[in-house]
């Protein structure tokens, strides 16, 4: 069970979403979502497959446009920004993709260098190399620096993906199913990494998952997406202290033996 991060600042919202709706053709995925993320907080978003969890964070990062609603990230309304302003905002957001999305024609080193050469032009090669070594050390994969993504395991790819987003020192981290498809021990490593990132880089994060062990290990607060809306929120135990069958089912089937 996670001990609450003492540095959470409830008076400062880094993300505020109100009345977010999103449909694909006639299929309504998000039906009025409200959400706040506070400074320094790890917020876990739980939900079954296909409930629109990935869609939600893609809207936050400006990859998809909302149909309705207000999406405020670090004081700016994402869907009202010009491409330039959006890019400036995106530098403060780290996005860890569900399947890592490493550039598979590039080595690990080049993957990490890619954002650096473009956005920290003032850095010389020596400084860049130091940055790269530092994030690789933070995710515990210093030895993989010259490997190709295809040579890495799923868990290693996840960690390199996280390293690639950390390298620009984002204020917000968005993790899309960081532990999906990983064994329990590797999952725990990733959970520890997420908490370590929160402490060491003082980030605020949204962690999307349907892995309850992960939710319990990293979440300062948990919300549950059901039927296109957030139905429950609170600490892990608060969320599951309910008579709502759909929420209970989620819990029971996760720990079935």
């Amino acid at each position: 069970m996670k001990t609450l991060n003492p540095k959470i600042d409830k008076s400062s919202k880094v993300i505020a979403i109100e009345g977010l709706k999103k449909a694909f053709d006639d299929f309504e995925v998000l039906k009025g979502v409200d959400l706040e993320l506070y400074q320094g907080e790890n917020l876990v978003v739980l939900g079954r497959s296909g409930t629109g969890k990935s869609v939600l964070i893609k809207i936050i990062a400006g990859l998809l446009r909302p149909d309705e609603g207000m999406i405020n990230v670090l004081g700016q309304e994402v869907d009202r920004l010009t491409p330039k302003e959006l890019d400036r905002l995106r530098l403060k957001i780290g996005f860890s993709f569900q399947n890592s999305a490493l550039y598979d024609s590039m080595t690990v080193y080049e993957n990490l260098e890619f954002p650096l050469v473009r956005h920290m032009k003032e850095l010389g090669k020596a400084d860049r190399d130091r940055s790269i070594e530092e994030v690789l050390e933070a995710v515990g994969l210093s030895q993989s620096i010259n490997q190709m993504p295809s040579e890495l395991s799923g868990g290693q790819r996840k960690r390199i993906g996280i390293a690639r987003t950390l390298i620009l020192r984002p204020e917000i981290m968005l993790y899309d199913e960081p532990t999906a498809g990983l064994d329990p021990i590797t999952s725990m490593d990733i959970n520890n990494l997420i908490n370590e990132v929160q402490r060491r880089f003082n980030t605020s994060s949204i962690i999307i998952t349907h892995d309850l062990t992960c939710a319990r290990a990293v979440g300062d607060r948990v919300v549950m997406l059901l039927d296109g809306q957030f139905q429950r929120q609170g600490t892990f135990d608060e969320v599951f202290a309910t008579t709502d069958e759909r929420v209970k089912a989620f819990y029971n089937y996760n720990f079935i033996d």
Partner: protein
Amino acid sequence: MDRIFMELASIYAFVARFFREVFVPPYEFREIIRQCYEVGVRSLPLISLTGFIIGIVFTNQSRPSLADLGATALLPALISVAIVRAMAPLVTALIASGRVGSGIGAELGSMRVTEQIDAMEVSATNPFNFLVVTRVLATTLMIPALTMYTTFVALMGGFVNVSQNELTSLTTFFTQVFDAITFLDIISSSVKSVIFGFTIGMVGCYKGYNSSKGTEGVGKAANSAVVTAMFLIFIEELLILQVVNALRGI
């Protein structure tokens, strides 16, 4: 019908975006050079073989008709006109559609499917600029260069055949080759191969960049990149032929 117009509108938007972004920094020189190498140098073996064989075969097959007229002395001129005006640009473009166009379609398609393009976008790097502009520039520059090379190799193939049968010397052969073609031939072939190169890059990128999700999306993107590019190249060939004929005053 609606779908066709939607598709046309999105193709138009894609091409327009290319012209908007090609002149705007940042310029990805390293990636452009890498792509030029990929398109140009890596196509050389296939192009060399095909060009040379086409030169030999075409010369060999043309001989009997000319021999009937007692005009085999005209073979170098005939080969020259056929290769410079028509065969070299077309063969190069078709081979490149198959090799380069499908490669671009598959590569960008799989980057789309595995969210690498999204990853670039959220790291505030313009994926269109990095992926599409560089590849289209590379094909537009390298296909004309390859065409010149194909022309040369095919002429050499023709020469090998002629020198064996008519015992023509290299200098005589090339004097006749150059006498037969005009400045307009060279210009129109160059312009044509620039257009072909642009088409191959653009179609490959469009299909890959807009690939549908799933692994089957990648295959479809690669496949339709080749088919569409070849189709467009034949249409363009016909249109350019009309223009050139008008310029020649035929």
